[in-house]
């Protein structure tokens, strides 16, 4: 078990965005987190990554309690993430963007940060020259860049927040293969996604959130056949 959340809660004003959510993620799996809009998926990720401090509960990562740690510390502990709306350093080159992750993101001292950064860019098959300023990239390239930066922190656990939003099937196949490759190389992945096809395709296990609470949990097959989930989430008309 790489990550364990024990009844994690987060409130905004009166709204319980995440309410007593407990889950366990096994080492080396692709763990899907789904649920209707506003179900608290991103909020939960933010709690794990340290962008939010949970109001209750605890988060254990590799046996260490990391609840309420700062995001940069959590990053160095080995959890990296991408954002729903891509975040990057617009006035830096592609290479420098990734170097930030290489230099600061890991506990290990990297001897040749530039070379390491290039390796990660090649790993995600980044299509643009490395000295281009990041502000000149398009959405899909920025997503790849962000992925490279997240990986470059030498993370054990990768949190992906809607990586597929806005991608076409062709690009989707590419990113699916990439996610699989990342997992096969020994990293654990939690993925938040709306696109059911992707989720059903690559996840080992799926966790369904609804109104901040756990609705169901299981393999894709189990989730597909769970009537409660289909009703609450997929809608009647989806399964034609």
């Amino acid at each position, binding site marked *: 078990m790489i990550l364990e959340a024990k009844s994690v809660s987060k409130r905004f004003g009166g709204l319980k965005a995440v309410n007593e959510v407990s889950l366990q993620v096994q080492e080396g799996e692709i763990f899907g987190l789904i*649920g*209707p*809009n*506003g179900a608290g998926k991103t909020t939960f990720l933010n709690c794990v990554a340290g962008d939010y401090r949970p109001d209750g509960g605890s988060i254990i990562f590799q046996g260490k309690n990391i609840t309420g740690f700062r995001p940069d510390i959590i990053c160095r502990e080995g959890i990296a993430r991408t954002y729903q709306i891509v975040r990057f350093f617009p006035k830096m080159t592609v290479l420098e963007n990734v170097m930030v992750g290489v230099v600061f993101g890991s506990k290990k001292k990297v001897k040749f940060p530039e070379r390491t950064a290039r390796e990660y860019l090649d790993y995600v098959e980044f299509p643009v020259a490395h000295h281009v300023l990041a502000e*000149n990239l*398009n*959405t*899909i390239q920025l997503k790849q860049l962000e992925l490279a930066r997240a990986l470059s922190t030498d993370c054990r656990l990768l949190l992906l927040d*809607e990586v597929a*939003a*806005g*991608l*076409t*099937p*062709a*690009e*989707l*196949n590419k990113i699916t293969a990439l996610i699989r490759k990342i997992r096969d190389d020994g990293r654990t992945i939690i993925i938040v996604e*709306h696109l*059911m*096809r992707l989720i059903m395709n690559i996840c080992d296990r799926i966790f369904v959130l609804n109104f901040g609470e756990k609705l169901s949990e299981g393999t894709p097959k189990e989730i597909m056949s769970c009537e409660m989930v289909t009703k609450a*989430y*997929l*809608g009647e*008309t*989806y399964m034609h």
Partner: protein
Amino acid sequence: MLEIRQLDVSYGYLQVIWGVSLKINEGEVVAILGTNGAGKTTLLKTVMGLLTASQGTITFLGEEITNLPTFKLIKRGLSFVSEERNLFPAMTVFENLILGAYTVRDKKKINDALEYVFTLFPRLAERKNQLAGTMSGGERQMLAIARGLMHGPRMLILDEPSMGLSPMNVEAVFETITRLRSGQTTIVIVEQNVNTTLRIADRAYVLEQGRIVLEGTSAELRSNDQVREMYLGIC
């Protein structure tokens, strides 16, 4: 109704749209499809005067509208529901809708429009006094479409109306579009959700790397192998 001829658009040094020509007739639902980064949103934003065309002309209802400021296009009967929704978060649903009718001076017309969108989206009537910023993704999208209808547009342009919505909300949005279509509003829709879009559209254009590579009726495109492979992911 809307005609684009040989349009070029650039971001800085980078040309994004290359000689695009297309035509939309009154009462049609036309889809613009294409991979991410093909220039669909850029094309729409240029039509709406949010970006500048470097070459080519755009005519609407027989008059040239190339590079006119956005607010003048709204007055001429265009309406654009953007990908980002662009709602006014600190205003109520009601105020958002009233602003949708900013170009309408006639009080009675505004009230009629309000009634119309409330019958279209009863949910909005219930939440009239809620702040737009506190609504869920699906409700926001409904509000954005409703607001876009408030000034009685001749043509409604929708940019990725299903993006970021859960499947149930996606269905609701497409149902609305079907209903609008019978209300005789001309609709241009840009979508990733190709399957569903082609079900409701009359015709479609396919954009690739900023150029139009295919055009035809929905039925034609749905049976076109290239489209099926590239965009429907059926391999």
